[in-house]
């Protein structure tokens, strides 16, 4: 049975624009599920919806979330607080901003211990030191009394992880945990997350825009585009045979040794503004395999193989079968990402260098250029 089950989650702004649109997935205990997508596609909002911590002006409109058999959206706020930090914990993108600057590391961890384990005073202090030790912070007995500004970015993220682990969560939501860190530290933090997971058996929802991170950490992956999950597959399936044209283009955009000296390919066009697409596929305007139907009808979810599904007319029964002749043909020839994925798969899995496949325009204006 799955630990977390999300059904048809819809999150929207007060003005009605859907920033998370009809998302369903589930995560089993001990599993890492990656939510992959570029910035603004709704992956963080999905995570915050699960925690019921949406910012002002954003609301959960419909859908259901089951955590350990408990329907989160039916809980009273007081019971939801028991879940937050207890059964489900969350770490964030900017460790530098996510810790309270005027509170010692130890006190910030002890707060969780007091809330969820009723641990106070010396016992809490002792446990905080243990936790810091576990996440690989050297000289933990001294660090526990220090303020966050004395720690480096990687150390701060380790503190965040220690804080999340303090409640012994069954699910850890990691929202771009390594994006703000430099590459060597990224690898260490991801390693730490993997080790922690194998030790505690917790499930992890890993939110990222980095195919390299997915390749090294995830068991299963959902690709998000403009608020929807457009493809969901096991890591092996996704890297062996990406189905959705968007996923294929992501792989095509990866730099790789075999393509040294060539221009990096980019996906033309830009993400449609929130709520601008009323009908049809949200990727249609940027998709070179789109035909008339893609602009008219919102594609339904299609299960293609065991554990792999896609939201695309190319694979729909009607679209893929007899009717959409051009579409089907195009679909086959247009599996442009396929040969590339064979190249990039070993490259990313080897993990020598996590490749930022999705340049995040706000954070890395020159991300493409930076990667070799």
């Amino acid at each position, binding site marked *: 049975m799955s630990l977390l089950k999300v059904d048809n989650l819809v999150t929207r702004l007060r003005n009605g624009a859907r920033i998370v649109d009809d998302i369903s997935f589930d995560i089993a205990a001990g599993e890492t599920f990656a939510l992959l997508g570029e910035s603004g596609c709704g992956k963080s909002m999905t995570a915050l919806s699960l925690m019921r911590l949406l910012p002002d002006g954003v609301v959960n409109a419909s859908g259901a979330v089951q955590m350990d058999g408990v329907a989160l959206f039916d809980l009273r706020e007081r019971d939801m607080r028991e879940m937050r930090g207890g059964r489900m914990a969350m770490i*964030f993108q900017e460790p530098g901003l996510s810790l309270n600057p005027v*509170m010692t590391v130890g006190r910030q961890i002890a*707060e969780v211990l007091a809330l969820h384990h009723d641990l106070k005073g010396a016992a809490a202090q002792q446990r905080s030191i243990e936790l810091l030790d576990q996440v690989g912070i050297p000289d933990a007995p001294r660090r526990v009394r220090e303020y966050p500004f004395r720690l480096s970015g990687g150390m701060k993220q380790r503190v965040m992880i220690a804080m999340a682990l303090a409640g012994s969560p069954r699910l850890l939501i990691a929202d771009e945990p390594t994006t703000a860190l430099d590459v060597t530290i990224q690898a260490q933090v991801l390693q730490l997350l993997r080790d922690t997971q194998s030790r505690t058996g917790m499930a992890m929802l890993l939110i990222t825009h980095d195919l390299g991170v997915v390749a090294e950490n995830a068991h299963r992956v959902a690709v998000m585009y403009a608020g929807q999950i457009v493809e969901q597959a096991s890591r092996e399936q996704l890297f062996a045979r990406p189905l959705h044209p968007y996923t294929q283009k992501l792989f095509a955009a990866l730099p790789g040794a075999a393509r040294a000296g060539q221009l990096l390919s980019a996906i033309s066009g830009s993400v449609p503004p929130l709520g601008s697409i009323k009908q049809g596929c949200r990727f249609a305007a940027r998709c070179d395999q789109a035909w008339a139907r893609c602009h008219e009808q919102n594609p339904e979810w299609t299960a293609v193989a065991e554990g792999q599904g896609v939201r695309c007319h190319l694979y729909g029964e009607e679209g893929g079968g007899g009717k959409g002749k051009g579409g089907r043909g195009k679909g086959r020839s247009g599996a442009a990402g396929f040969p590339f994925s064979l190249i990039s798969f070993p490259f990313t899995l080897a993990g020598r260098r996590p490749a930022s496949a999705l340049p995040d325009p706000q954070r890395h204006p020159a991300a493409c250029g930076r990667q070799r």
Partner: protein
Amino acid sequence: MSGNTVSTYNTCPMIAYLIRRILYAVPTLVGVNLLTFALFFVVNTPDDMARMQLGIKRVTPEAIEKWKQQRGYDKPLFINSATGGAGKLTDTIFWQKSAGMFVFDFGYSDDGRSIAREIATRMGPSLAVALPTFLIGLVVYVSFALLMTLFRATALDMAGVALCVLLMSISGLFYIIGGQFLVSKLWHLVPISGYAGGGEGFKFVVLPIVIGVVGGIGSSSRWYRTIFIEEIGKDYVRTARAKGLSEPRVMFTHVLKNAMIPVLTGVVVVIPLLFMGSLLTESFFGIPGLGSYTIDAINAQDFSVVRAMVFLGSVLYIAGLILTDVSYTMVDPRVRLS
């Protein structure tokens, strides 16, 4: 700023910092003194002062000379060319009236009373009004701002902000006069003005305190609300919520301590100035404090008192600024004075 002093005083950089700040205060005070002196005597001559004090009509030149001589205004303002050596500078009104203040010898007012003694006796009434106004005000403003923040973006918050803007838009004088009219004249709850020491004085100070607090609600609460709302949008607040803390706990243990940093800037600096009282409130309510003392001195063209009060105010203000710096080190672990 650090550099050389740190190496000299590295045992305690905080003390070194304080000593340096106090030394910086000396030239500031000389400048303040010079400016007060210049401004005062641009619009007045010692003759004007004498005539004013003695009564405008039928003042003989001899009486004026005698008045000036008794109070030391018969000397040149800045430079005495009649004498030689150091006397050129020291045997002047400026030197005679200013030098003593740097050792806190305030001299005598024009009616012959010791200014130091006046300050000592008037500080009590000033504090009796200013201190409660400050403390109650702080609690009220911060609570009101917190309330608006907890209910942010709701009708309650909107109404609060609208009320703040309304209160801000009304002149302070209106609160005083309106308050006196309503509470004292119509309802006869407290006397319109006056003062008495001890428990008896309560009925005299309660109205000025209430009016002082009400008059500040608009601007202060709105300002604190802005600070709190900015703080509550920060990432660490989300982390605190993700731990499962309740919203009041998030507010009081996380947001408030961080928000104190900007709040302190405006608050700590005025603490020493509380001793000076309030010019307006004391004058309108007949409180015999330092504020009304200053106003009376200005009206009477009593330079000795004016320059003493300006000097005292400057000293207290500088003390407030230093105090602000020190208080930063207490609330923000990232700040170190050196």
